């Protein structure tokens, strides 16, 4: 049995290894540890019927502390919203008993008077505490309370009322339990609506972590906690929730939550805060005031009531707009504070459906967006853990890495894998005693047990070869157009300026190859003073003229490399060759690099015209659009490119393509090289050294100097019953779930879809673990592991409530772009719209029964921006229009870009920033920090533009500055040095700093914008109002809320969606 796991990259892998079909077994293994796991699953990995969470209840009965460690069984309680605590008396035990799930239902009853003297503890601490010391923390006083109420017994009957997924969570359904239960007659209520955080605090918390049922009966201790809050204040005051309803407490959390929270206790917390927020946010939009509206759990928009009337019936100002940018979903991060930060991993719905039928009703894609190397902000760097000789602690069956959610038992001698529930031995070196709560005594010193994101230093078993040095190979087109456009000169200069900053000194290797109709190799041996050029003109039978010295160690050959880069532009300045032997050059580069792998940067400024891989002009045919052959334009024409991409990946070569042509250069084919090698496509249409120089050199410099993970593989593991099936992004699949990434960096994100393998999930929590095994530039083999937990829910409403628009849009857009590769653009657009409509329709159905929805369009608060982003997606470059709307190359390049963008940048590209800055500039005293106070983001509509203003539009790829027609000439003169009227064509003007505060301030703003999004350089375009066609092209077409050129505006879009949602609703 060979030890190599798949995640061991390297040319030599893939020994025919007997993998097992099971999720967990060998294949999964980054490296199947030879000793541990010799015979391939001698024990069929999952055959053993170990229910996922089974351990928990079992362990409860003997309330052994170990169980509680870091297992947020009831995540919801932990969330801060827990504020809604519960009517302890019935709810606690009842819910616990009745729910099959382990969630501590915290029924949201707010009976506590406002005057409750509870101190609300800051959440994180609380959570931490309870997880660590759940039991000890129970105050004894509380226990006595319990006895008083004698609730336990009462709780049992409740079992009959399992939290059924009555979809809407009707009140009646929700309430019966309490009523039956509550022997006391309804007490006078406390009418005040409690908005303040309820008293649940620390003592409640412990409860949450305690597993459900068994505990109740056998171990009364904890129960009291739930009730404690009530007890404190109003022991006798509890009333049946029913009586509350009529009172119609506006936006009372109680009512709100009952729909989701009470019936499905799991979900309790979040809606609470939400509802009140909604009310605040859309004061005008809200439903007509009435009792009914008070209990609504959704946001709504009033949409034209009279069919056929001209009045759209929508107040466009009231439409939701993401003017605050992307908001990371914090609710589930708070539920599971040990999760990795959402910037590394975001689920489209952090609430995982528990059955396939539920999943099929969700309609929107269920999946995740993983951004494994996202840039960490200061102070939040991923900790590095070195286990040394102990070896990395992993589950021996499913190969999961040790993480904060594993539980230690048996006095610390064993640990239970949170993903497959297998009991593993703790290696002697790793042993630590457990404290009374079952938590390891040394947990605080062990980041892998405290943090969702860690990096392990991998020992030699994780290598098939010594870690490779960082290697950069440049394949540069030196034909006429490359020289003439200034590309060659800019590239040479930029590379030279970056030589000092290339990662991995002193091991970094570098090499160059230039080509036009012949290939030029360069011998850079360190003993030479000048590089030697060797020309190979035979394109049919490519050979490498020199076995070594084409790739050299940068630090040794530095002077030769410098000399080469200095002379490169002049060497070819008189070149009149217009041919491009791209294919042969690529093969030659492949041969040179195949020993080591590395990063291949391709600079291409014409259509490949000679030798293997030559391409045709095929983008010009307008007749193809709208036919079944349309999609063929967007996929590589010649199988050579796919084959090369596969070979490059196999030898650990990542490709970044820089394309510069002003004419068609078949980005669809060239980009394929980047697509399957984890690379990136940079496209500079009509590159002109003068104007685009800064952009190119910034982006090339970033590409060269950003931290890069070499020869890496990534695998995402998740618990039994769920599986990631399809992956979307730039990588190559090396086995069903192993992503090969020859070179990956902080600018690449990957999306994937989750599917359920079992019809019904029996677990209450799904754990997801992303593992990226890579070689760092410093030559160390490392594994970056991100772990997250997500609750399993049985209620569709919960899924909607927790949905994450950002990752949803990210996944949707990638699916749409993949669709354009096999279908017409129109089909892709239609598919997006259909998904949104279906999703909203299902949601509407949830509420249509009990609420008079009338002409209102309803949507969950969490998805309020979905329609807008959907519209933006339809109007985005890769998907919009037809032949004339976007150049084919531009469309393909943008498509490749969307496939790698992380959530935040994608959202910014879809709904760019538009702000007005003239007032800010005109004020003499303000500093750059005040910008936020002065200008807020505006809706992307022409109505936002005022002829007297100066506006900045920033989509992350470029910045457009729009000069209003009546803008004070003072500002323009200060910015441009001359009056606006003196400039016939603004496209020729570049912005530079002038010696006045207005100009300085503007440059300050631009700098800040660029720093906020460092992955691309935002080139600045100036445009004047009324300057056609530039104004339309640059700005007006991008104001996505407006109707333009055959596309719908936001208001119409909402109406359209609304109509379709209602059809057959």
């Amino acid at each position, binding site marked *: 049995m060979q030890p190599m796991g798949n995640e061991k990259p390297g040319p030599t892998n893939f020994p*025919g290894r007997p993998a097992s*079909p099971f999720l967990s077994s060998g*294949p999964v293994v980054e490296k199947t540890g030879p000793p541990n796991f010799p015979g391939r699953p001698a024990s069929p990995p999952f055959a053993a019927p170990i229910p996922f969470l089974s351990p928990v209840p079992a362990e409860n009965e003997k309330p052994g502390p170990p169980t509680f460690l870091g297992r947020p069984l009831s995540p919801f309680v932990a969330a801060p919203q827990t504020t809604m605590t519960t009517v302890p008396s019935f709810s606690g035990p009842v819910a616990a008993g009745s729910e099959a799930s382990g969630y501590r239902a915290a029924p949201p009853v707010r009976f506590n008077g406002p005057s409750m003297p509870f101190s609300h503890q800051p959440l994180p601490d609380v959570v931490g505490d309870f997880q660590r010391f759940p039991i000890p923390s129970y105050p004894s006083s509380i226990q006595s309370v319990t006895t008083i109420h004698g609730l336990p017994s009462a709780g049992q009957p409740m079992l009959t009322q399992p939290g059924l997924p009555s979809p809407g969570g009707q009140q009646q359904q929700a309430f019966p339990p309490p009523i039956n239960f509550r022997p006391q007659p309804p007490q006078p209520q406390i009418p005040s609506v409690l908005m303040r955080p309820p008293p649940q605090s620390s003592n409640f918390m412990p409860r949450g972590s305690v597993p459900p049922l068994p505990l109740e009966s056998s171990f009364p201790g904890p129960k009291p906690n739930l009730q404690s809050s009530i007890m404190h204040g109003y022991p006798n005051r509890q009333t049946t929730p029913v009586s509350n309803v009529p009172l119609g407490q506006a936006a009372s959390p109680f009512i709100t939550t009952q729909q989701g929270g009470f019936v499905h206790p799991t979900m309790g917390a979040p809606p609470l805060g939400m509802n009140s927020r909604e009310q605040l946010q859309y004061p005008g939009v809200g439903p007509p005031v009435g009792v009914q509206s008070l209990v609504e759990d959704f946001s709504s928009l009033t949409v034209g009531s009279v069919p056929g009337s001209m009045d759209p019936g929508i107040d466009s100002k009231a439409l939701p707009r993401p003017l605050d940018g992307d908001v990371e979903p914090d609710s589930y991060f708070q539920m599971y504070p040990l999760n990795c930060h959402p910037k590394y991993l975001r689920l489209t719905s952090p609430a995982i459906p528990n059955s396939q039928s539920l999943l099929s009703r969700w309609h929107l894609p269920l999946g995740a967006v993983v951004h494994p190397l996202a840039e960490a902000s200061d102070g939040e760097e991923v900790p590095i853990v070195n286990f040394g000789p102990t070896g990395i602690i992993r589950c021996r069956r499913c190969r999961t890495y040790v993480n904060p959610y594993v539980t230690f038992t048996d006095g610390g001698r064993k640990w239970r894998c949170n993903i497959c529930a297998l009991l593993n031995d703790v290696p002697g070196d790793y042993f630590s005693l457990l404290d009374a709560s079952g938590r390891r005594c040394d947990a605080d010193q062990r980041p892998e047990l405290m943090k969702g994101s860690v990096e392990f230093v991998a020992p030699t078993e994780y290598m098939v070869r010594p870690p490779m040095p960082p290697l950069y190979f440049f394949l540069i087109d030196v034909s006429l157009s490359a020289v003439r456009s200034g590309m060659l000169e800019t590239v040479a200069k930029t590379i030279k300026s970056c030589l000092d900053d290339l990662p991995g000194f002193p091991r970094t290797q570098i090499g160059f190859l230039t080509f036009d109709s012949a290939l030029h190799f360069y011998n850079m041996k360190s003993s030479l003073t000048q590089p030697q050029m060797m020309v190979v003109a035979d394109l049919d039978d490519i050979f490498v003229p020199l076995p070594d010295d084409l790739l050299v160690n940068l630090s040794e050959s530095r002077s030769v490399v410098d000399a080469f880069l200095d002379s490169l532009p002049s060497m070819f300045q008189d070149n009149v060759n217009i041919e491009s032997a791209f294919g042969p050059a690529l093969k030659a580069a492949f041969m040179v690099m195949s020993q080591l792998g590395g990063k291949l940067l391709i600079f291409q400024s014409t259509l490949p015209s000679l030798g293997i891989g030559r391409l045709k002009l095929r983008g010009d045919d307008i007749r193809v659009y709208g036919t079944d052959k349309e999609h063929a334009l967007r996929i590589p024409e010649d199988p050579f490119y796919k084959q090369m991409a596969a070979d490059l990946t196999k030898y650990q070569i990542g490709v970044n393509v820089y394309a510069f042509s002003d004419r068609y250069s078949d980005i669809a084919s060239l980009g394929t090289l980047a697509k399957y090698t984890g690379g990136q496509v940079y496209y500079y249409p009509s590159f002109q050294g003068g104007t685009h120089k800064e952009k190119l050199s910034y982006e090339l410099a970033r590409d060269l100097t950003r931290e890069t993970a070499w020869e890496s593989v990534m695998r995402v593991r998740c618990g039994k019953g769920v599986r990631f099936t399809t992956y979307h992004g730039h990588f190559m699949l090396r086995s069903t779930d192993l992503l090969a990434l020859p070179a990956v960096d902080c600018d690449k994100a990957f999306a994937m879809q989750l599917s359920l393998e079992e019809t019904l999930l029996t677990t209450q929590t799904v754990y997801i673990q992303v593992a990226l095994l890579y070689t760092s530039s410093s030559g160390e083999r490392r594994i970056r592991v991100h772990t997250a937990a997500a609750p399993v829910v049985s209620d569709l409403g919960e899924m909607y409530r927790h949905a994450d628009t950002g990752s949803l849009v990210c996944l949707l857009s990638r699916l749409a772009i993949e669709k354009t590769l096999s279908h017409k653009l129109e089909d892709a657009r239609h598919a997006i719209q259909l998904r949104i409509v279906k999703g909203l329709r299902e949601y509407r159905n949830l509420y249509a029964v009990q609420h008079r929805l009338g002409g209102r369009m309803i949507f969950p608060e969490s998805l309020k921006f979905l329609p807008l982003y959907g519209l933006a997606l339809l109007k985005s470059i890769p998907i919009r229009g037809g032949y004339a709307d976007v150049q084919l190359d531009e469309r393909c390049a943008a498509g490749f870009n969307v496939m790698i963008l992380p959530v935040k940048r994608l959202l910014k590209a879809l709904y760019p920033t538009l702000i007005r800055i003239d007032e800010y500039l005109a004020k003499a005293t303000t500093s750059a920090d005040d910008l936020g106070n002065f200008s807020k983001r505006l809706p992307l509509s022409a109505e936002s533009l005022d002829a007297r203003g100066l506006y900045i539009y920033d989509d992350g790829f470029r910045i457009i500055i729009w000069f209003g027609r009546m803008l004070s000439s003072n500002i323009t003169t200060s910015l441009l040095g001359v009056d606006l009227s003196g400039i016939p064509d603004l496209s020729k003007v570049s912005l530079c700093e002038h010696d006045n505060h207005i100009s300085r301030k503007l440059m300050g703003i631009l700098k800040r914008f660029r720093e906020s999004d460092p992955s691309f350089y935002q080139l600045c375009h100036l445009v004047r109002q009324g300057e056609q066609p530039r104004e339309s092209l640059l700005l007006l077409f991008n104001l996505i809320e407006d109707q333009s050129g055959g596309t719908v505006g936001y208001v119409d879009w909402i109406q359209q969606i609304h109509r379709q949602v209602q059809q057959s609703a």
Partner: protein
Amino acid sequence: MLVWLFSFFLLIALLGLLIFQLMSLADLEFDYINPYDSALRINSVVLPEFITQGVLCLLFLLSGHWFMFLLCAPNLYYNFRLYTRRQHLVDVTEIFNMLDWEKKQRFVKLIYTVILLFFSIFWMVWTALEDD
């Protein structure tokens, strides 16, 4: 008689090629083999499979067994269409996304070929009995 014997062997060969491809795909799915090798193995037998199938059709056509030829024709047309669209080879970069389809397609072919084989054996026996 000779024709039937010959077609019998061709069909057996066809079956063998299809089973080999299906096995390669299954190995890939269970991670016994990497996609490069899998694609290489499958692609190396795709053309032989198509040619064998073509020869079989030709054999039936020339020997005047119209019924059998008509039975074979759809498969021939399908192969021809794949070939002209250059979709006959598996694509190593997309092999995992196409896995289900590739398997299904080959499985249908397999069943189809087995049916042909039965017919062929039937006719072979029939003619053998008639000859006697």
